[in-house]
Every structure is written in C-alpha cells, then in structure tokens.
C-alpha cells in the first residue's frame, strides 16, 4: 500500500524544500511561509475516510510496530483476563439468579430468640406448621433439614449426605424428578415416609444409572425404603453434597406442643407475586406476635423471625470477599492502563511528524483523535479477546483453588454476561488508556515539529502527563500491596493460633450406628470393641470419640441448671455448647487437663454422672471458686446431677478465628435422658505416622465388627483445619498475586519514565559529564527525580489505602485495617523496588559519551 508512505514522504519533501530555500538565502520566516503555501488547499485524507478505513489504518500502524503492539496486547490480556475470570466467579456466585423457578421470590425464614442470645436459628416443625397456616404473603412454604444416612445392603456400606424435606419443597423450587414421581403430601405422614428420591450422581454411582431402580427397596439407616424417583443432574439442593431426599415424617411426637422448641428445620417460602421481602417480614412479625400471645410460656423471652432472600442466604459472606477481589483485579487493570497510556504517550511523541502532516493535509483535530483512539480500541479489542481466552483457562485454575465451601462453585462458567462484561471492560479500557495520549498527540504544530529535526526533546506537557500516570500507578500499587500485606499478616496470625489440641498425627472420621439396627447399649458395645481392637493395632497411640468434633462443622448448645441456682430468670439460664465424649478422647486429642481428671471407662451408664468443663466455662460460672465437685443438671423435671470432675483447656471449635467458647463435656455413656438412641460420633485416632495411612486399618477394624457399618468424612485433623482456612487462603493468594502484578507494572512504569528521561536528556547529560560532573552525581540526580515521583505516588497511595482498606475489616484477623507496621513495611518494600527501577536505567546515563551526545545535536 503506497499510501502508508504519505506522511513520511511529505515530511521529507517539505523538509527538503525548506532546506533548499534556506540554502538559497531565503529567510527562515519566508521559507516557512513557502512550505505552508505548498500545503495550502491540500485535503486528501483518503486513508482516514471512514471507520473501516480507520480500523484498517490502525491495524497497519500496529503492524509497523509489532513489538509495541505485542507488549500492549499481552498487558491487556492479563489485565482483562484476570477481570473476566474474577467476574465469572462473582457472576455465578452472586449475580446470576439461583437455578430455581422464580428464584427472586424464594425467601428463607429463621427464628430469633433474643433472651437466649439466639439469632437466625432454624425452626421447629410445629412453628413451620403455624407459619404455613397463619401467613398471608407466601404462595407456599417448605421445610428441610440436612442429615446423613447409612446406605447398606448393596456393596460397600456408605454414609450419604441427604435432606429430609416436605413434599412442597420441590414444587416451590420448580423441580421435578427426571425419573419416577415426586413426593406427595401423603409421604409426609408418619409411617408413609419410607420413600426416597436419588440424586442423578448417586443413581449413576451406586445404581449404574439403571432406570429399573424406581420401585426397588434400598436400606437406609437399617430401614427398607422405596426408591420413587431420580432427580435431574442439574438439581442441587440445598447444596452440591446432597445425594438423596426423604420426606419429613410429621408424626405425633414431632408436631406435639412439647417439641415447639425442638428447632432443626430451615423454612423456605415463595412470595406471592408482587409481595416484597419487607412486606413478608411485616406479615411474619404479625404471625410471631400472635404466637407470642398464644404460647406465652414458650416465647416468654421474646420471639421474632427474619425473612431474607434465598440468594442472600446462600451467598452469605462470600460476596464481600469476591467484591474485594473484583476491586483488586480492577485496580490491576487500571495500573496496566496507566502503563499502556505511558507507552502510547512515548509513541505519540515519535509520531508527531505523522500527525503534524496529517493535520496539515486537512485532517482536523477531532479526526486525528478519532484515528488514534481507533488504534487504542483495536488494541483493546485484541487484548480483550486474548483476555477472554486466558479467562477460560484461568477459570479452571480459579475453581480448582477456590475453597470447597464456596457456594455455587459448580455453577461457575463463562456465560453471555461475562462476555458482555469483558467486551465493555475492553472498550472502556481502550478509551481510558487511549484518550489522553490521543488528545495529547493531536496537539502539534507542524512548523515546530519539522523544525525540531533529529533531536526531539519531549514537551513539558508530555513529561508531566507521563509522570502523573506513573505516580498514579505507584499509588494504586501501594493500595493493593497494603491490602495483600494485611491479608498475609492476618493469615500468619490465624495460623499462629493454637487450636487447643495437637492437630498433627490425628485421623478423624464419622461413624453413625443406625437406630434401626442399633440400640444405645449395642452402639456403646460397638464403640468399646472398636476402641479395644484399634488400641491393639501397631502405630495407633490413642483412640477416642466425640459427637461434635472441632473443625467438622458440627456442634450444638443446650441449656442446663447449676446446683443452687435452679430457678434463674430465663435470660440468665445457662445455655452453652455441650459435647458427648468417650473415655480417652482428651488424651487422644491431647487436650490438656488443667485440673481433676478426664473420662475413663469407669464412667459408665451405671456409675455416678460426671462432667468435664473447659476453662472458659469454669471462668464464666465459677469465676472465684473451684469448679471441681460442682454439679449441674440438664432437666429440672427429672433432675440428674452431673458432677464436674475435671477442667480442660479451651479449644477452637468452628474456626481458628472465633474466640474460645464455654463447653461442657458429658460422657457419651451417660445419656442425659432416659431411652437414648445411638449417637453418631466422630472417631479420633492418634497415630505414630501419617494419619491418613491408618485409614484403611480403621475401615478394616470397623468392618470386622459390623460389615454393614459405613465410615465417612475421613480426614486428618490438619486437613480439616486447612479447609477451615480455605477462603482466607484463597483471598490472600489472589490479592497477593494481583498486588505482585501491580508492583511489577508500576516498576516497569517507573523504569520507563527514567529510561526515557535518560535518552531524552542524553545531550544535557553529555554536557554535564563533559563539564566534569561525576557520573555518580548524574545517577543520583536521575534516581532522585524518579524517587520523588515514587514518593509522591506512595504518599497518595497511603491516603488512598487508609480510606479503602476499611472495606476489608471483615477479612482481617488480629490486625487493624490501618496497621502501621504493615503500612511501613509495604511502603519500604515499594521504595526499594522503585529505587531499583530508577537505578537501572539511570546507570546507563553514565555511559553517555559526551562527544557523541554533543555531536548528535
């Protein structure tokens, strides 16, 4: 294409003309006038005639400088790709509607019992029936609870996560079985509840996808249950782990007034069309108001419900962390934009001649800006496409490292919304990094440009713009680095928290003897025999069991009465975490016994009842006295005293981050009430070597006692603690990666500005050196200028960080959002990197040969 030569050829032409005229003795002014006259009336602007032409011209211009285009596209692809990937997660987890019919009308109702300090708790079957009968705002309501079931009788026994649900649940969600039938209301009646729906995954895994499974009997919890259907593969409720659904049996006991306070169900409602959550809340306030009047005794401490959108409940706190990540990755893109804008400014400077001539040939300023902006947009579009490809790959990585408890993890994918987001981000990015350089480049004077000849020092404005951009980069990078620093600091502090027991060499697993085949006594025999046989195995140093293992997500509180304080006001009634532990549990966990003793085999059902409390509970209820010998009971009607025989150390139960809670331990062999059923337990096994290596041994021993007894949830304790830190690790890792990227980009920016200054001022530097300046002083001057820039950026960054890291308060642990130590260390680290980025190009200045530098003038 000959046209691409136009600017250069005309430039040379005009310069030849000017030189000729000057050589013939024409004055400078007259020569310039003649040159200008030569261009008069010229208005051929052919290559710039339309958008298509603009794009073609832009592609050509970029082809001429492939290195530049590659650097820009790569920077953009990384920045936009990271944004697209994080946005995909935000989109799938937070923004995309839940995969249920009328998902925006689905709400969760939970109880609040202010007197007991209980908020947002599950609901009893009796209350569910009341809500359903008394509300005016819901089309339909449903209740469910998650639990686990032993599947036996077909191959290896297995413990499966499942849910007990009301028949109304599936219709509310708009779901129906892919095979067989859904539950009918009759299935919720006692005695008719022996039916089950299988998940698609379970059907494939355990039943080889056999359609004849419908109508067959399987053994769940030792009872024969009929398979009535299989759900479609896409159906997941309430979460991904659930593999089967059975109906809640509303038997006389469950719906009796005695059980108004036995809360275990989550209640869903579907709002009538047009009803808002606020209206539903108001209606439910009315309902609870009538219940408080009708059942004064049960609700004497006050009672209310909270109505919230199902999506809000499912997403929970995950949203905040994700939006922080999205903000961080957006900042990385901003920094990338600043770097690209910087490159474009340099490039624009080198293209002043081309722009000057085009201006002279009749293109007005808007025209030039449009052309240059088209180039930026073309770059941004290419970068966006590459970024989207990177995101596809990055998303797999992101899902792989995402914490397992991230809601809706399996729904994460690139959809149309992500693509639209990426396209929009790319275009905004293109304008963002392209506009200032384009405006800047379009402001040129033909005569000035031509007169400059070979040596072309940057204009003041051009330098100022570049320096401002780099300072902004430093400021933004500092914000991200501080955020990363705070998170790393928090993570280290969380990891430093001791859980209160020795988590190493500890194998943990769940064993739940089914009530259909096990009485309480038989289950006790089972565990006694299990402990005995395990103790005999080599490499096993300790065995114990507890109903609620730390870091297993299980636990539960109970109210009790202290001896001598049998009639407290309701709000003063002790209500604490109660655990049921076997003999040997504290030793196996290495939970320190501070006073007294732990449980032994002698603490049997016939022996006097005993209890162990932790230090937090001892301090709360006997702040001045000795808890040993004190007694407590769990029932006022049927008083059975449990005597405190030991005090053990506090431990972290749900997470390393939550403060120690008071705990009461009761021997599992000494049940609280008459007629106990067997209790599902977590087994803890202390091993000499790798705990997971002992798992097959434990399975074998269990099978040798009862081949139908599954074990499940097999994990080392360290794995459990690691999982509890999963989301913290994820956020820290990503923010760390983004901050590193930001640091690299910002140092490239600083390097670029200093390097450019060196080459731009090589003449001046040459003069200085020729006049006897020490190279050392020249380097110091250049580094000083670069560092002034960095310091300005850092100062702005600190102010920005103080303002912005506040949003992270909920993600921090043990450090404040304005932790001076973190700010100091990060600023110092940034200064160090900035100094290096200044020093490297500045050193080159000392190699400027004064003679050559002067001659090039």
């Amino acid at each position, binding site marked *: 294409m*000959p*046209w691409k*030569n*136009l600017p*250069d*050829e*005309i430039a*040379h*032409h*005009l*310069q*030849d*003309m000017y030189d*000729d005229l000057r050589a013939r003795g024409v004055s400078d002014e007259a020569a310039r006038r003649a040159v200008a006259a*030569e*261009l*008069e*009336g*010229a*208005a*051929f602007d*052919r290559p710039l005639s339309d958008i298509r032409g603009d794009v073609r011209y832009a592609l050509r211009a970029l082809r001429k400088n492939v290195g530049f285009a590659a650097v820009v596209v790569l920077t953009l692809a990384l920045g936009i790709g990271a944004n697209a990937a994080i946005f995909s997660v935000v989109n799938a987890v937070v923004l995309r509607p839940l995969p249920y019919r009328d998902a925006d009308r689905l709400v969760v109702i939970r109880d609040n019992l202010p007197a007991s300090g209980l908020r947002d708790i599950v609901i009893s079957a009796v209350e569910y029936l009341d809500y359903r009968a008394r509300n005016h705002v819901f089309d339909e309501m449903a209740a469910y609870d998650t639990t686990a079931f032993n599947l036996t009788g077909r191959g290896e026994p297995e413990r499966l996560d499942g849910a007990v649900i009301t028949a109304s649940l599936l219709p509310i969600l708009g779901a129906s079985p892919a095979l067989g039938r859904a539950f009918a209301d009759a299935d919720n009646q006692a005695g008719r509840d022996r039916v089950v729906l299988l998940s698609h995954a379970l059907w494939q895994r355990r039943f080889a996808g056999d359609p004849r499974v419908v109508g067959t009997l399987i053994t769940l919890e030792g009872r024969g249950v009929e398979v009535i259907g299989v759900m479609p593969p896409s159906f997941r409720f309430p979460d991904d782990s659930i593999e089967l659904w059975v109906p809640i049996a509303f038997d006389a006991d469950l719906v009796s007034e005695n059980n108004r306070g036995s809360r275990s169900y989550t209640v869903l409602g579907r709002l009538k069309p047009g009803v808002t959550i606020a209206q539903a809340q108001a209606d439910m306030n009315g309902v609870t108001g009538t219940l408080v009047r009708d059942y004064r005794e049960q609700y004497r401490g006050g009672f209310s419900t909270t109505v919230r959108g199902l999506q809000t409940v499912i997403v929970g706190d995950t949203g905040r962390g994700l939006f922080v990540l999205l903000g961080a990755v957006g900042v990385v893109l901003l920094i990338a934009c600043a770097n690209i804008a910087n490159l474009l400014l340099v490039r624009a400077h080198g293209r002043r001649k081309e722009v000057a001539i085009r201006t002279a*040939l009749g293109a007005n300023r808007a025209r030039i800006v449009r052309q240059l902006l088209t180039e930026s947009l073309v770059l941004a579009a290419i970068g966006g496409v590459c970024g989207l490809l990177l995101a596809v790959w990055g998303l797999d990585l992101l899902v792989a490292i995402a914490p397992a408890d991230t809601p809706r993890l399996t729904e994460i994918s690139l959809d149309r919304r992500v693509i639209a987001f990426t396209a929009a981000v790319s275009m905004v990015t293109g304008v963002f990094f392209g506009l200032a350089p384009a405006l800047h480049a379009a402001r040129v004077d033909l005569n000035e440009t031509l007169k400059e000849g070979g040596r072309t020092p940057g204009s003041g404005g051009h330098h100022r713009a570049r320096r401002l951009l780099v300072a902004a980069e430093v400021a933004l990078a500092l914000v991200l680095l501080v955020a990363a620093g705070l998170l790393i600091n928090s993570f280290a502090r969380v990891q430093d928290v001791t859980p209160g027991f020795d988590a190493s060499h500890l194998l943990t697993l769940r064993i739940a003897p089914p009530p259909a085949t096990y009485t309480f006594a038989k289950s006790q025999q089972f565990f006694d025999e299990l402990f005995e046989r395990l103790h005999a195995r080599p490499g096993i140093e300790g065995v114990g069991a507890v109903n609620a293992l730390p870091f297993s997500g299980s636990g539960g509180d109970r109210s009790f009465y202290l001896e001598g304080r049998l009639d407290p006001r309701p709000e003063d009634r002790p209500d604490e975490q109660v655990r049921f532990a076997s003999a040997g549990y504290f030793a196996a966990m290495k939970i320190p016994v501070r006073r007294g003793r732990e449980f032994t085999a002698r603490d049997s059902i016939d022996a006097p009842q005993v209890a162990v409390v932790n230090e937090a509970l001892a301090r709360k209820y006997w702040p001045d006295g000795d808890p040993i010998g004190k007694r407590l009971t769990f029932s006022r009607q049927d008083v059975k005293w449990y005597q405190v025989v030991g005090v053990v150390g506090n431990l972290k139960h749900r997470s390393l981050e939550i403060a120690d809670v008071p705990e009461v331990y009761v021997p599992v062999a000494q049940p609280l009430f008459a007629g106990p059923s067997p209790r599902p337990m977590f087994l803890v096994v202390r091993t000499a070597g790798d705990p997971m290596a002992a798992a097959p041994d434990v399975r074998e021993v269990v099978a040798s006692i009862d081949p139908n007894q599954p074990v499940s949830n097999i994990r080392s304790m360290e794995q459990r603690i690691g999982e509890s830190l999963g989301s913290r690790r994820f956020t820290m890792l990503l923010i760390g990666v983004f901050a590193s990227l930001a640091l690299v980009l910002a140092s490239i920016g600083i390097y670029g500005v200093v390097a450019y200054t060196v080459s731009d001022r090589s003449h001046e530097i040459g003069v200085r050196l020729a006049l006897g300046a020490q190279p050392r002083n020249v380097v110091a001057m250049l580094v000083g200028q670069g560092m002034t820039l960095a310091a300005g950026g850092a100062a702005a960054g600190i102010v920005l960080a103080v303002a912005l890291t506040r949003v992270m308060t909920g993600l921090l642990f043990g450090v404040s959002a304005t932790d001076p130590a973190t700010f100091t260390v990060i600023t110092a680290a940034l200064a160090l990197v900035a100094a290096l980025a200044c020093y490297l190009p500045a050193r080159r200045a000392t190699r400027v040969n004064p003679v050559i530098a002067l001659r090039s003038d």
Partner: protein
Amino acid sequence: MQHIKQILDRELKKGSAELLILSLVEDQPRHGYDLSKLIEARSDGVLKFRVASLYPLLYRLEKRGWIQGRWIEKAGQRRRRYYRLTPTGAQVLKSQRSTWREFAQAINRITGIEPA
C-alpha cells in the same frame, strides 16, 4: 490572464501528468521532491506540482505497477523514497509518448503552430 493560465495548467497536467512522471524516472530513479523540482525547472516554472497532487499521482502509478518506490538512505542524506520505472511502465511510456506525439502534431497542424 492568471485565470487562463490556471485552467491551461490544470488541463494540461491532467492529460500529461502521467507522461511527465514516467519520462522523468526513465533514466534514473528519483524521489518526489526531485520530481517536483525537475518539472518546475524544465518547464521554466510553467508547470508546478504541489504535494497534494504529486503524491497521490505517484501512488496511483505505483498501484498500477508502472513505477516502483523504495526507501533508500544515502550517506549524509535524508532517507528518501525513490521511484523507478518498471518494465510495464516502460511500455506504457512508449505508447503514451507516441499517442502524445500524434496528438500534439494534430493540434499543431490545426492551429498552425510550428513544431518545436
């Protein structure tokens, strides 16, 4: 008078511009400024090409494959684009020359102007 000169200039250039360029690059490759200077000098200032018409013309000829431009950097000089005649261009020049000659002779015979 000035007006007539402008019309003459334009009409003549329209018909003869291609011939002028092809003739000038016949012996040796030349760059744009060189061409414009030569045209102005050899016509004693009667013919004058401004950049706005010269370069589009050059590109048109180049696109047709009659001339070929190449950037050449000579020692001590600015980098310039030199145009040389291609074999196709040589043939076109030959035929345009004879057409022009016949045309000029015909005009001369009619107007009674002696051949130069």
